């Protein structure tokens, strides 16, 4: 192994350097510099994100434990963009709430550590690396969920999150150990060749899917979602619903489409039921939510159900539509969370009723919220429409018309609750209890603008889809 091959880990090493750098800065900065240190770290991460888009060679190191290729590379870049938007949106919150406590980049360091875990998880070439990545991605988030230590809800959410995720990790590793028992290997490449359908492997598969299903908050592993989102600070809820979920979907995709491919007849049936349950529960529970964070929590459960539609088509079409949708979902959900964050920063209000007449006081914020929600609902010409349409197409290509039918019915139901928010913002008149006009701060504005551009452009710009198609077809040949 030569030093050049370490370049394959450019993302991981770069982020690690960034984390260490921030820790040092944090130690040596005085109280007055804390605020600007946040800006500085965002700048560094923006540069890191930009560098990440330079093409990279494919290959694997550490005897196949760590591997990378164009698709993984692209996806890490997408996650970076998501995290960048998220940082921009949460910078004001950090400056207002955290700097007083004489800390600043701690939050960002924890966030980056979790992101590092996701990189390793995505690039894993065997189950060991996968598990290490999974843990590294999860544990810092538990700290982040409980970050507002003086708030009771936040602490409760932290405990809830760490307990359920410990259980989920345990379930997943139990599943892995059963799978190891049937195949005798933990390497992905070798695994796919020897695994076959047997009682033991099915049992292992079910445990494994349960563990990951927790991360994606699939029904019936979704119970933590709404409470944790509600208790967590908004940037963390946003991180959980966008970045964490996106990464977990991708690792599920990689493992199901390559390693577990011989077991496809089994997990296809499991997914068929999980999809229907996730879409139904997510949508029906979202109908009655009054708190914006809980509302977006159930909406994101429902979206997970839509994403899984792509898993019904185990070929390039399925991979492409899933990655494409996750990229779109990142922009759409960050748009919605960004507005919630912005309003919460300015006024501290998070209830849906507070949005009454928002258009007449804050037209731009309401428009971005409407774009984001319509994109989530799948209204053309916004990106979400294309993402959803192609996911349906993926499921329909294998003849699952009934599933598509359920999906479109659920999408109509989802439109109802998205419209409820639009109704509050646009239809209701404002009165003295409404949120007054306020000006968002520059970083927040940049974050919202990037998200809106993503929502408007990603769908209509078809070369992106073609690009993902090409990289994922080469991925499946691995």
């Amino acid at each position, binding site marked *: 192994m030569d030093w050049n091959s370490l370049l394959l880990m450019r993302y991981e090493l770069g982020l690690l350097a960034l984390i260490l750098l921030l820790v040092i800065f944090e130690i040596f900065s005085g109280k007055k510099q804390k605020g600007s240190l946040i800006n500085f770290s965002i700048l560094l991460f923006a540069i890191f994100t930009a560098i990440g888009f330079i093409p990279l060679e494919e290959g694997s190191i550490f005897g196949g434990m760590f591997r990378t290729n164009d698709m993984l590379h692209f996806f890490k870049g997408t996650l970076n963009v998501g995290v960048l938007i998220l940082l921009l949106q949460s910078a004001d919150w950090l400056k207002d709430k955290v700097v007083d406590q004489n800390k600043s980049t701690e939050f960002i360091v924890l966030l980056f550590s979790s992101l590092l875990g996701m990189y390793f998880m995505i690039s894993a070439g065997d189950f060991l690396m996968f598990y290490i990545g999974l843990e590294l991605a999860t544990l810092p988030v538990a700290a982040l969920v409980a970050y507002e230590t003086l708030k009771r809800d936040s602490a409760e959410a932290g405990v809830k999150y760490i307990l359920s995720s410990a259980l989920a990790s345990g379930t997943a590793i139990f599943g892995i150990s059963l799978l190891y028992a049937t195949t005798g290997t933990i390497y992905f490449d070798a695994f796919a060749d020897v695994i076959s359908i047997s009682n033991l492997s099915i049992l292992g598969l079910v445990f494994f899917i349960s563990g990951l299903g927790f991360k994606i908050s699939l029904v019936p592993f979704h119970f933590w979602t709404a409470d944790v989102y509600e208790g967590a600070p908004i940037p963390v809820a946003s991180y959980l619903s966008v970045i964490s979920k996106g990464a977990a979907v991708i690792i599920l995709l990689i493992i199901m489409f390559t390693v577990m491919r011989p077991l496809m007849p089994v997990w296809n049936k499991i997914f068929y039921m999980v999809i229907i349950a996730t879409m139904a529960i997510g949508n029906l529970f979202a109908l009655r939510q009054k708190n914006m964070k809980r509302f977006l929590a159930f909406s994101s459960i429902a979206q997970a159900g839509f994403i899984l539609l792509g898993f019904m088509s185990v070929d390039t079409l399925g991979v492409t539509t899933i990655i494409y949708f996750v990229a779109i979902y990142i922009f759409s959900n960050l748009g919605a969370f960004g507005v919630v964050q912005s309003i919460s920063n300015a006024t501290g209000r998070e209830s849906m009723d507070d949005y009454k007449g928002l258009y007449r006081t804050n037209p731009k914020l309401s428009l971005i919220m409407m774009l984001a929600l319509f994109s989530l609902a799948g209204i053309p010409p916004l990106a979400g429409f294309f993402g959803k349409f192609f996911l349906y197409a993926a499921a*329909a290509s294998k003849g699952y018309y009934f599933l598509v039918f359920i999906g479109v019915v659920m999408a109509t139901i989802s439109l109802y609750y998205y419209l409820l928010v639009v109704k509050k913002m*646009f239809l209701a008149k404002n009165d003295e209890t409404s949120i007054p006009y306020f000006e968002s701060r520059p970083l927040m504005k940049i974050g919202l603008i990037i998200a809106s551009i993503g929502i408007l452009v990603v769908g209509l710009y078809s070369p992106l889809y073609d690009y993902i198609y090409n990289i994922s077809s080469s991925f499946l040949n691995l």
Partner: protein
Amino acid sequence: MDILTLFVVVPVLTVFALIFTKDLKQSRVVALIGMAVQLAMSINLVFAYLKERAVNDSIMVFTKDVMWFEKFNIHYSIGVDSISVLMIVLTSIIVFAGIFISWKINDLPKEFFISLIVLSTGVFGFFISVDLFTMFVFYEIAVIPMYLLIGIWGSGPKEDSAMKLTLMLMGASALLSVGIFGIYYNSGADGGPLTFNLLEIAQVNIPLEAQKLFFPLVFVGFAVLGALFPFHTWSPSGHASAPTAVSMLHAGVLMKLGGYGVFRVAMYLLPEGALHWNDFFLVLATIGVVYGGMGAIMQKDLKYINAYASVSHLGLVLFALLMINKVSWTGAIIQSLSHGLLTALFFALIGMVYGRTHTRDIAKLGGLMKILPFIGAVYVITGLAYLGLPGFSGFVAEMNIFVGAFQHDDTFRRILTVFVVSSIVVTAVYILRMIGKIMMGPLDYPKGVEMPTAAWYEKVGLVILMIPVVLIGVMPFGITEMIKESIQPFLERLL
């Protein structure tokens, strides 16, 4: 840029221009200029089309094809035949008149015109599309602004009506999307590549089983927009709550998307499915015609009367399409045009009456002819045209439909036809009763109530709509010929 894409580009540019306007005066002028250009272009399109048709006998002319999503074989593919040309003209006329009718919209005028023109962009895009995906995109773009238009600027229980309308129409489009996937994944049945292109799919023999399965989805998906019984319930409440220009545009144009889609997609691409399900939907359409008429008789609110009348008259369009012959299809297309114009006229007039009297209850209105002569006269003319008086477009349309329907000599269709023809009488009942009640009779308003006669912009709006009604009624031959020529290839698929 080609002649058809401009129909989407001009409204989009108008919307961009509207974003920068400051108040009502600016925004209405910008909207008016944009739509005047659109109207001029659509009239130009008619002549360009006639010229092109003389030398080009393919199904669609002015076709253009740009690859969009290569892996799905999705194209931005456009083209028109005479039917789409006429629909485009109808749309431009109604949008143009609608802007005059909304001349005095006070609340959020900029947003109102933006939503209205976004809606019309969807409609124009829908009529020029030859690719199912593009068509579906435009269809949904046309539906969603309705929510804001009714919800913000409407009256009465506007929030509920808006929600009901949006959800039912989006639900319909959900069914439609399943149908579209069904068509798409069967379009390679003859070994060719999968395609969304209408004309290419028409060359493929889609398996019979698939046709039977997907026809109802596609048909219902479109026909909900055309107020097919029992999926019409969004229409009366939606129209009653919508502001005037939106009712005009919605009943006048958007509901025509339903009939157009049934004709262009459902029956053209799935002919065997259409024949298989023909009887079933024919019964539903007949019930819609009769039920809509009866519903209109029972209503007291002017807008509800007109909304139920629309259910009845659009049921007639679906009925005529399902009768599958040249005469009835010609009637169906003319009925779409005629109903579009007349219903837009009605809604405009109702808006004017309501704006002055602040009531739409026919029991409280009376003798308006004495104080509002212009509006009253147009109201009477519209009413007569609506019930099918010769000399107006309604007569030409209904005559064609009934003559076409009677060409079938089996008992089943005869009976249905008799039912449907009886709706003429029902129409006469509610139209004459309504006109008699609100226009004639004693005038019992307190003296102090101010009742201005029609303003110039109202007159312009009405006259613009009146002209084509009379034109079609007096000399239908040109249009009939145009339509007959274009429906031929579509009809051949079903015979």
